[in-house]
């Protein structure tokens, strides 16, 4: 009843093109940001930040990256884990190699480096239509894992083969390294991801986004009305890799702190992020967040219920998780390829009509 657009007139195209044209939505977003920025930091504890909020934020960013490629441009990548590894290693090498470099610059540069590495795999495979990118990104996944594992330079020759993020400050507050407070790391993640998500939204709602979607929906027609398929797909893949790379850099520096690259970013991470965007919603920014939250939270809940509550073995819970995720993928692809984001939209449409059925 309160969710109505009646009486809200758009007098300019700018207003019509706003991301949240409805006043109720604007209030909703403001409220969410308030909760995320004020309520969570005030009441959250270490576990809540470290095990839930920070990974959700970081995976949301990775999911946005993959969604740009898959949801908006219709190309499939199975190497998200490998590219996150590139971001993480780039972040590590940059921080240790150039200690004066500002941390935010390091994160962004890690993304840029990942995009460049992505080009190596995208150029041969995106010239041709079909599933070649999927295979090329699989190549990236296995090759990069091997590279970072075997070439000691990438680990600064540490005997253990792990990479550890040294402490870094942003605006005088330590946010990386073992001493960094989880709440501070969370707030930084939140702001950083929000800004990058906004930038991604701006990209996809403008001409660039339209060129991606045109290629996704009908590549031949897009080509015939003047888009260049290869360049368009390559741009999507680069931007996507940038986001994924930044997410990888953040995963190392703000979440895990110290990782063995090949293990932390293996092929399962690629599938996880893919599941996030399918379940959350292909071609939806909101879906990227919803999907990330779902995929991060579900295993935690499953473990709590099945192992903690029902006393089953952890491995059983893991197998159940496999079946659940796989089943949900098929379910969503059949019933609602736009995922949870679309379900949310349907709820809003129903709300608009409420209490009338039609």
């Amino acid at each position, binding site marked *: 009843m309160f969710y109505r657009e009646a009486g809200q007139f758009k007098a*300019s*195209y*700018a207003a019509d*093109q706003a991301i949240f044209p409805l006043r109720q939505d604007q209030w909703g977003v403001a409220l969410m940001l308030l909760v995320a920025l004020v309520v969570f930091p005030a009441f959250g504890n270490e576990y809540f930040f470290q095990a839930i909020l920070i990974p959700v934020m970081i995976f949301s960013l990775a999911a946005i990256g993959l969604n740009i490629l898959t949801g908006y441009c219709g190309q499939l990548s199975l190497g998200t884990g490998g590219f996150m590894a590139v971001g993480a290693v780039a972040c590590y090498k940059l921080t240790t190699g150039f200690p004066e470099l500002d941390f935010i610059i390091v994160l962004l540069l890690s993304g840029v480096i990942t995009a460049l590495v992505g080009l190596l795999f995208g150029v041969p495979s995106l010239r041709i239509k079909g599933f070649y990118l999927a295979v090329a990104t699989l190549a990236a996944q296995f090759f990069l894992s091997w590279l970072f594992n075997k070439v000691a330079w990438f680990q600064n020759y540490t005997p253990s083969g792990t990479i550890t993020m040294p402490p870094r400050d942003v605006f005088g507050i330590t946010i990386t390294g073992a001493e960094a407070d989880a709440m501070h790391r969370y707030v930084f993640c939140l702001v950083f991801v929000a800004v990058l998500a906004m*930038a*991604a939204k*701006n*990209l996809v*709602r*403008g*001409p*660039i986004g*339209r*060129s991606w*979607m*045109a290629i*996704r*929906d*009908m590549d*031949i*027609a*897009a*080509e*015939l*009305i*003047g*888009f*260049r398929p290869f360049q368009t797909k390559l741009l999507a893949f680069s*931007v996507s890799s940038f986001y994924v790379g930044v997410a990888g850099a953040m995963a190392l520096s703000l979440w895990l702190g110290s990782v063995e690259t090949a293990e932390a970013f293996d092929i399962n991470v690629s599938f996880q992020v893919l599941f996030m965007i399918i379940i959350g919603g292909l*071609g939806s920014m909101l879906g990227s967040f919803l999907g990330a939250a779902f995929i991060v939270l579900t295993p935690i809940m499953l473990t709590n219920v099945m192992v903690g509550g029902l006393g089953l073995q952890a491995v059983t819970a893991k197998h159940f998780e496999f079946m659940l995720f796989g089943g949900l993928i098929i379910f969503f692809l059949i019933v609602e390829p736009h995922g949870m984001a679309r379900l949310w939209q349907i709820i809003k449409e129903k709300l608009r009509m409420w209490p009338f059925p039609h």
Partner: protein
Amino acid sequence: MSAAERTGSDREVMLSVENITLSFGAVRAIRDVSFDILKGEIRAIIGPNGAGKTSMLNVINGFYHPQQGQILFRGAVRRQMRPHEAAAGGIARTFQNVALFKGMTTLDNIMTGRNLKMKSWRTSLLPAMIYYGPTQREEIANREHVERVIDFLEIEAIRKVPVGRLPYGLQKRVELGRALAAEPDLLLLDEPMAGMNLEEKQDMCRFVLDVNDEFGTTIALIEHDMGVVMDLSDRVVVLDHGEKIADGTPDEVKNDQNVIDAYLGVSH
């Protein structure tokens, strides 16, 4: 302005097709075909199924590359043109089977027609990511143009509807809108009225004539409905089995023995 005046010999040639031959392996789709399209005219390409009409359009906008012959567009020779070059040069088209971007709204579909007119996105990603400022200004300026196209085609009501949900006739109209949004000099229409009912056909005819009249857009169209072809077009070229068998005003073509044979069949 009558058809005779419009096709007067002093008119500038917009595009001429010279001795085009196109084959796929052993199959000859087009054999040594030449014709021209004058500025401002409506030129129909007709012929039985499999005559090579759509292949001809694909050659004109650079999707197929002919083995022989050349295309002169505004006097310049274009041998190996790519589709995006054709589009940038002012050639827009619609398709035989509707080829809209089905996941996008009517508005976004037509906006894609403006993409080549929008410059900032090709130079840098950063302004596009920031959006506010030059990108937004350009977006709004182009939106205004697109809204004029939407008004012209009388599809205001379906502006925000995903095109996949629209009925066929409206989809064809949206597709025309997408082509028009590019402000083309030459508009290629591949069977714009196929599968429409009478009313929809009349609407579409009106739009085609209006586009030609109001914007002076040159139009080349493929159509099977002879009534439509005779009414709309200034000149007609007839293809059969990849060869040109007739070329002239609708009346000339209508009485051409070759054309009658091709359509009605004759024992060779």
